[in-house]
Every structure is written in C-alpha cells, then in structure tokens.
C-alpha cells in the first residue's frame, strides 16, 4: 500500500486542488445537500488532505454520500473545489481495487440503453480530466 503522503499527493494531482488555499470559512459545508449524512464534512476533506490522513477519508461514509453536485466547488470563495478532493479519494479507492480505467470500446456494451442522457453527462462531468 502507498504511504499516506503519496496518497495525499495523488489526491492533489487527480483533483488539481491546492488545499492550502482553503481559509476554513465553511461555505462548502453550508452548501452541501448531503452534509447531514456525512461523518467527515466537506470543509474537513480539505484539512484531512493537508494533514495527510487519507485512510480516514477513504474509510469515511462521506466518500459515498457525496453526490458530486459540486455546489461546494461552485460556491467556494477561494476556488478550492473540496468536492473534487472527495472525488479523487473515490478514484484512489477504485484504483487500489485495480480497476483504474475503462476501455473505450467496452463502454457502449456497458451502458443500458435506458440510461438517461443526463446521467451520462453527469458522469462525464464527474470524471472528466
């Protein structure tokens, strides 16, 4: 397993977020529709990454409670994008399971023809990079 330091670095790289820009104002948490479901709150994603406590982050309920609605990203006064951090943490979990990516050719088969267009757009938005 990777060290906490390298996992934190990876999260920063995947998300493109500089957590030091955060001024701990709490607006992300105030905006988050899943706040009450979360054990680690959106403003804390940032400090967990700064403090390199990634294990707690990936084990948290929040990892799967975040809706990727990106309200936090939209409203953060310092352009920190905390939602992208939790997103990156999810990707780390996926990667660590060995399922790093999808092959482009496999995608059409995986998609249920009834999947709404909107969901596809949202997924792309979530994972675009």
């Amino acid at each position: 397993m990777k060290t906490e330091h390298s996992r934190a670095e990876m999260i920063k790289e995947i998300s493109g977020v500089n957590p030091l820009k955060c001024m701990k104002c709490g607006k992300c948490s105030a905006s988050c529709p899943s706040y009450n479901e979360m054990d680690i709150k959106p403003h804390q994603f940032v400090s967990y990454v700064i403090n390199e406590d990634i294990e707690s982050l990936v084990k948290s309920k929040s990892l799967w409670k975040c809706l990727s609605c990106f309200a936090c990203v939209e409203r953060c006064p310092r352009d920190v994008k905390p939602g992208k951090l939790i997103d990156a943490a999810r990707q780390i979990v996926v990667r660590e399971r060995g399922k790093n990516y999808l092959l482009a050719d496999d995608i059409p088969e995986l998609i249920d023809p009834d999947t709404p267009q909107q969901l596809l757009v949202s997924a792309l938005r979530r994972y675009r990079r």
Partner: protein
Amino acid sequence: MQRIGVFVCHCGTNIAATVDVKKVVEMALHEPGVVHAEDYAYMCSEAGQELIHKAIKEKHLTGLVVCSCSPRMHETTFRNAAEKAGLNPYMVEIANIREHCSWIHKDIEEATEKAVILMRAAVAKVNLDAPLKPGESRVTKRALVIGGGIAGIQTALDIAEAGYPVDIVEKTPSIGGRMSQLDKTFPTLDCSSCILTPKMGEVNAHPLINIYTYSEVESVSGFVGDFTVEIRKKARSVDMNKCTGCGVCQEKCPSKKTPSEFNRGLNTRSAIYTPFAQAVPNVPVIDRDACIKFKTGKCGICSKVCQAGAIDYDQIDEIVTEKYGAIVVATGFDMIKLDKYDEYAYSQSKDVITSLELERIMNAAGPTGGHLERLSDGKAPKEMVFIQCVGSRCADNRGKSYCSKICCMYTAKHAMLIRDKYPDTNVTVFYIDVRTPGKNFDEFYRRAVEDYGVNYIKGQVGKVIPQPNGKLLVQGADLLDNKQILKEADMVVLAAAIEPNPDVRKIATMLTASIDTNNFLTEAHAKLRPVESPTAGIFLSGVCQGPKDIPETVSQAGAAAVKAIGLLAKDKLLTNPCTAHSDELLCNGCSQCANVCPYGAITYEDKEVNDHGVRETRRIAVVNDALCQGCGACTVTCPSGAMDLQGFSNRQILAEVDAICR
C-alpha cells in the same frame, strides 16, 4: 428685570413626538420675566437662528432659554447666535429636553410635564444671569512629547516641520522604542532599523528638536497653552558634550552580568552601556546599580580608557524647568508578564519564548547573531509552534479583555520569515481567529499559508509540557477536524498580549488626563476626537492610546501633531469666564477649598478687610482665574459659603431647585 425669550425646538420628531411643544411654549409665557416664547422644527438651523435673532431685536430680549438638545451639541451655536444679535453669550441657557427628556420617556404627558419643569428651571437661572467676559491667556509656542518611540519621533518631526520647537523626553538612554527592537516589519518585510534609524537621525539633527534621554517628567502644572513642566535628567555619569561614542568603555568594563533590557534579558550587557549600536544619542550611561565603582569605590576603568575624558562619576540628577503650550503623550507599550500563564511553561523552559524575544533572536544584531536556535542547547529547531492570543481576549484576571491587534500579523511575519530562511523547519500556528484587517494584510497572511506552507490550526493550546528529551509537547485541539492534537515542538513562541507602559498611570495623574481600566489613555471622543485627551492641550500618539501597528501609529502621530500645531498657532486662548471667587467678608481661611481643588488654583493671601467698619487682616482664599476650570468643587466644600462660581452661582442653583420644586 430681565426680558427673556423661550425657544422650544421640535428636533424634527425627536422631541416633538414625545413632548407637547406647544404646551411648553404656553407655559413659558406664564414664567416671570418671559416676554416671548415660540417653537420651531429645527432651532439650530439657519432659519431657527434667524427667529432668535429677530425676537432679540424686536422684543429687546436680555436673556434666552433654548429648550432643545444637550448643551454639548448646540450651546455654542445658540451663544454665537445671541452674540450676533448683540446679546452677551452667557445670557443663554439650554434646557435639555431631548437627551434628558424626550429620548428617555415614553408617556407624552409625563415628558411634557418634565420639559416644562426643565424650562422653568432654566428661566429661573437666566433671571439671575449676568453678562460675563472670557479672559485671555497666552500660548507658549513650544511642545513637549513624552516618549521617544516611533510615535513620539513622528509627532516631534511633524511639529518641528511646522516651525515650532519641540522637546522629547525619553526615559531610556536612547530614543527608538519597540520599533528599534524589531527585525523585519510587516506587511512589506523591510528591516525595521533601516526605516527607523534615518528618522532617529533626523530628529537628532533637527534644529528645533531637543531630546532629553534617560529623563523623566517630574511634575506638570499650568493649563492648556501654558504648562510648566519639570524634567528630571537622570545622571548619565558620562558628559554628553565630550563623549565621542567610541564604545571602548563598554568593551573594557568588567561588570558584564546585567541582563540586557534591549535584548529582553536574553543576554547581558556591561554596566556602562548604550542599549544598541544605532542608539540616539550615541552616548552611554552608567547603570549605577551594576557599576563596581559605585558599589565598592574601586574600578574606575572606564574613566581611564576614555580618551575624551567624558566619564563623570560625580554627575547628579538635574531638574530642568520648561514651559510648553501643548503636551503629546507617546509612552507606548510593553508585553504583559506571563507569570500567570504557567500552562505554557514559559518560566520552565528556555525554549518557550515571547514574540518580542523571537524578534531579538531573528535580528542580526541580537543575542544569537540572527541565527534561529534553541536557547537551551543552541540547536536549530525543526518544529516551531506559535500560540496566538496569549493573555489577550481573556475575561479572567490573568489577562486582558482586548485583542492586542498586532500579533496575528507579526506571527504571520515570523512564520513566513522562518519558512523562508529555514525551509526544513515546520511551523504550526494555533489560533482562535486570524485577524488581519488592513491594507494588504490578509493577502500577507494568505501568503504565509499558501506560499510558505505554514500550518494554521484553529484552537488554543491547552498546555505545553517540557519533555525529558528537551522537546516540548504541545497539547491542542483542531476544532475544525474535531481532533485533539499532540505535537512535539523544539520551540514554542507565545504571542503575548501588549499593555500600556505601566508608568503611564503616573503621567496621566500629573496631566489630569484620563485612562481606562486597561491603562490606555482615553480619547476625548472615541470617533470624532481620537487623538485628543479630554484635558485641553494634551494629545495622544501611538500605542499608549490603544494597540496599533507602525502604519497606524505613524498616522496617529501625524494627527496628534496637527492638533498640537493648531493650538500652538494661536497667539491667545479665550479662557472660561465661569471661574470661582471667594467673598473676602465670608472667607475664614480654613483651607478646605484648596484641599479639594484638582487644578491647584487656590492660594491664600493675608488681606486687610473692612468688616462692618472693623479693619483687620485676614487669611483669605484667592483663586487664580487662569488655573480655575470652573468645576465647582470648592463652592460646595466651603463651610462659610464664601466661594461662588460665576455663571453658576449658589443663588442661581438654588433658584433652579426652587423652580423645579414649585
């Protein structure tokens, strides 16, 4: 018999909504002496004053009562209006029916009744008013600045630049104050002495500025425009005119064990010393408590090595008496003592230091030559912890209730400078709030976090525990992550609260200038007169009035200078004619009035009096008009009713009481 006009103001709805102003007018017309009464929406306006003017002329009024707001607001306005119409301004009385009546009552009937009573009392007083004429006093065109920190330096320079002579009294051997102890200064990080030293030199060279260092104000008497001040020039034991500042005495002095005040006791100095290399004046003093010659009579080495023959062991304190028109207080601040904050282990570990000590450690001229190192073992610290608000924002009796204002910024500065010079050293700051209002200040703090990776943690530290291995265990909490934190640090820096220099109490008493419960000098008005003391002729500059950084100190210093210049530019001041006088036939010379007079205005003279045909010499109280401030303390103290105050005579006050009780 007076011919009195009563003018009742509505103050828009401020008064008229609660007081039946028409009723007050109607009632006024029944009062003795009243020949005219009217009401108006805004008496203080041009149109209102015009009404007053017209009534004085047409009805040949000899006295006025204006029922309006507090005399603090508009007494001068109405007195000037009366004077323009040819009336003596002291024939005007204000009945305060706003602050004392409409603003504090809800019931219209009650409020109206009270307004009528206040009007009646004022009418009774005007009936006994007599025209008064203010006297004149001269203005000594010289200013005194107490304290030679950056505040005092800037004020003195600004006053002198306007062409008035200034004396600075500084109690330590050099001017410069705290700023001379600082390393670099936020928000631009320029070196403190690089920007201060030229100003010190300028003050020293200015033909209109005279500096008394190692000196203190001994006594102050007099009043605005005409203060007499005694200054104690402590014996320096070195002749200022002969000393060349070579420093050889300090080198050779064998008594080298006295903690250096300038370096906050982090190292020692000799008995004969200048506090720092750029000291102004560059003339040492002998600390007689440490000097072997003064203690045992032996030694005298400095005198032998001094080529200029400047050492003079026989010097004695000298008292200089000088007159001033204006006095500026600029006595600055110190850090609080930390003996009540044992939890931070300040007295237990040499590696727990205050921020001001850190300034000295970071300074190239400081005790470690500018190397950041632990004072216990000289090792370079790898983990530094800063603790904010130590002794600030405390409601208990250990600390101060206020925010010291400068520490958030100087800690960001310290953290940034350390990370810049020693990138391997981690810096953690425990804070309650980060307070950085000011031009480019928040950006400065953000740079510490974003560009220099300083770790800010929200939460005060609970305690610091020195470990057997020499480390310091810091126990704090991260309130945003809800975690308790245990951190091993090599050095802990405490942003201790600042407080006014303790001897400011003595100075304030001498000047009859008021101070608040924290010993900060009080301004005449928190918003509108922030650099003036309520005592006329006394001005405030720098941290002695409240916590400030250098830019704010310098702006306030300039503002205080302007106020002082405004005073010095006048040739004469009008004095308040409402002063006390004793009736020589009633005075029995008991001395009680002199005991209560806060301004020392009363003396006694042996006077020949003619008491119903009997001629005899009696000891009689005499009031100095120039000193009397009209406070009235003597009039109520005098057991024989001999003391009376012009404009507020005993008869007038009793007439007012009678009118109220009628």
